[in-house]
């Protein structure tokens, strides 16, 4: 199967701190990869590089064949809006816009806002009844589901999650993970997800463990 992500010798350092040591990583199209490790081990650094939010200090990243290093700043922005959906631990919704408007904003940056499509996306994440609510009026799990709707609205090929369930209780976590599995099975996009939670990792196909910027261990999840 073709690889959606291919890195070779990928590094990122902040001054003296080497947040990511040379990393060769290959993620096949459609795979659900989980990244685990201690705090400060370089997980977010890796995710930001994959999402085109940050530039490597060395090595190369190809996503769907595109060398991210060759893209300009606006080129990276276009790459993000066309290929990537990102979910953070903090929900990062715009507080003064409704759930529907938050989703439509992503459409606006991508192409044109389509209210019906945005409403459908929110219905798919089970929020058809909370379209007009602002983030402050939603629970943590609901907010995270708005973020998922927003991340998938432009049909990305790659979904990145940086501890998306880190702030959620067990019940909400399960709900979000079930939702992600459902969406992935329908849309066939790839997922790279950072988590501390062993249970969450079990939802993925493969898990890599990081420590101090290095990939130390790799395992297949037996359930898949």
């Amino acid at each position, binding site marked *: 199967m073709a690889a959606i992500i291919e890195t070779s010798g990928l590094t990122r350092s902040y001054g003296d701190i080497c947040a990511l040591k040379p990393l060769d990583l290959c993620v096949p199209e459609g795979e659900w990869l989980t990244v685990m490790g201690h705090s400060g081990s370089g997980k977010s650094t890796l995710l930001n590089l994959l999402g085109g939010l940050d530039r490597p200090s060395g090595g190369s990243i190809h996503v769907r064949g595109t060398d991210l290093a060759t893209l300009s700043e606006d080129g990276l922005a276009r*790459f993000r809006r066309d290929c990537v959906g990102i979910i953070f631990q903090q929900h990062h919704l715009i507080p003064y816009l409704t759930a529907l408007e938050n989703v439509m*904003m992503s459409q606006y940056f991508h192409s044109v806002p389509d209210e019906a499509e945005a409403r459908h996306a929110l219905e798919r994440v089970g929020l058809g009844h909370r379209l007009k609510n602002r983030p402050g009026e939603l629970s943590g799990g609901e907010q995270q589901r708005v973020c998922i709707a927003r991340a998938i609205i432009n049909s990305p090929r790659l979904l990145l999650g940086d501890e998306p369930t880190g702030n959620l209780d067990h019940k909400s976590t399960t709900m979000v993970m079930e939702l992600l599995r459902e969406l992935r099975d329908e849309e066939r996009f790839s997922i790279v997800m950072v988590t501390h939670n062993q249970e969450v990792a079990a939802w993925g196909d493969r898990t890599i463990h990081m420590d101090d910027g290095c990939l130390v261990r790799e395992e297949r999840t037996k359930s898949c």
Partner: protein
Amino acid sequence: MLIRILKSSFLKRPKPVLLVLLSIVMGSAVATAFLGISGELSHKMALELRSYGANIVLEPAAGDAGALKSDDLPKIKTIFWKHNIVGFAPYLFGQVDFSSAAGRQRGVLAGTWFGRPLQVPGEPDSIQGVKVTAPWWELDGRWPETPDEAVIGAGLAKRLKLAPGSDIVATAAGKERRFRIVGVASTGGFEEEQLFAPLAEVQALLNKPGQLSRVLVSALTVPMDDFGRKDPSRMTREEYEKWYCTAYVTSVAKGVEEVMSGSRAKPIWQIASAEGALLKKLDSLMLLLTGIALFSAACAVSSSLMAAMAKRSPEIALMKTMGADRLQIAAIFLGETLVISVIGGLLGYLAGDRLAVVISRTVFDSTVTSPLWLFPTAIGAALVVALAGSAAPLKRALAIEPVRVLKG
């Protein structure tokens, strides 16, 4: 969507938006008020300056041999620039022998109007004469009211030992005329050596009925510019029309010359150019003050937008994460700026217009009607303020790195 984002972002952040709006309103109001009264101010100032004396002199085109006609005088109030004629005074000069109780002396007798009511059909009545064109004369006594009364220059009065109440006899070509001195004039100029008597009496005495040697005209004019200095005889038809319809001292002089037969009109340059220079300085001062007001408004806008930007950086970082490029981010901010500045310009115009009315009433005791171009100017000023004020904040917004701002 952009509209929806803008609308929500305004409604949800009323305080910073109001702060920015206030700065823009202030800047645009001050600019409107300054520009609105500057026309009025120049006009008032020009009127004040007219007390320096006449700025146009008419003399016979044929030189000393010729003469002007006093019958032509009322026509001065019918020329194209009649409303700009503040006043005029006719003169007839002649060498005569003066005699008084103290002795005899040769000197200049000037016939003139002191303050003569002038009625021209179709025009408002006016007073013309020395009183109007030479308000700086210091008169010990009063102005003549009857044909027998005269004003004497201070130098001549001293030599002939004359004071208000005494008599003087002027003799020319065997004719004699007695005048009663009612005022002694100190002017600091050649007028101090002359006797000023009513024009008709002097014309009779000198045997020159209806004749004049000079007319001094005091007119409101605009400062000369490069175009005004061009030679009218070499202008194209359109240029000449434009020149004729601009109140340059030269074009007003031309208008007067055309109605006074046999005359040549010349600007009195030391007055005209000093006045022009002063008015120009006044205009640049107003522009400078307007510029400073706009600049400080832009600084205020910039600092409140900067502060708002610090609060909004997660929002901007988020937009960038979603794939917004620089143009899209700029569109949101410039869209906000545009809306605020149009509203601010409108309010600023209304406020500035009121301000101009209040200023002109308290300072000049008059009313102004603001010119039409002031409205687009006010909006333009608001736009300039807003755009200048948002340049630095926008630059900062574009430089935001989502990774740093959104770090978990």
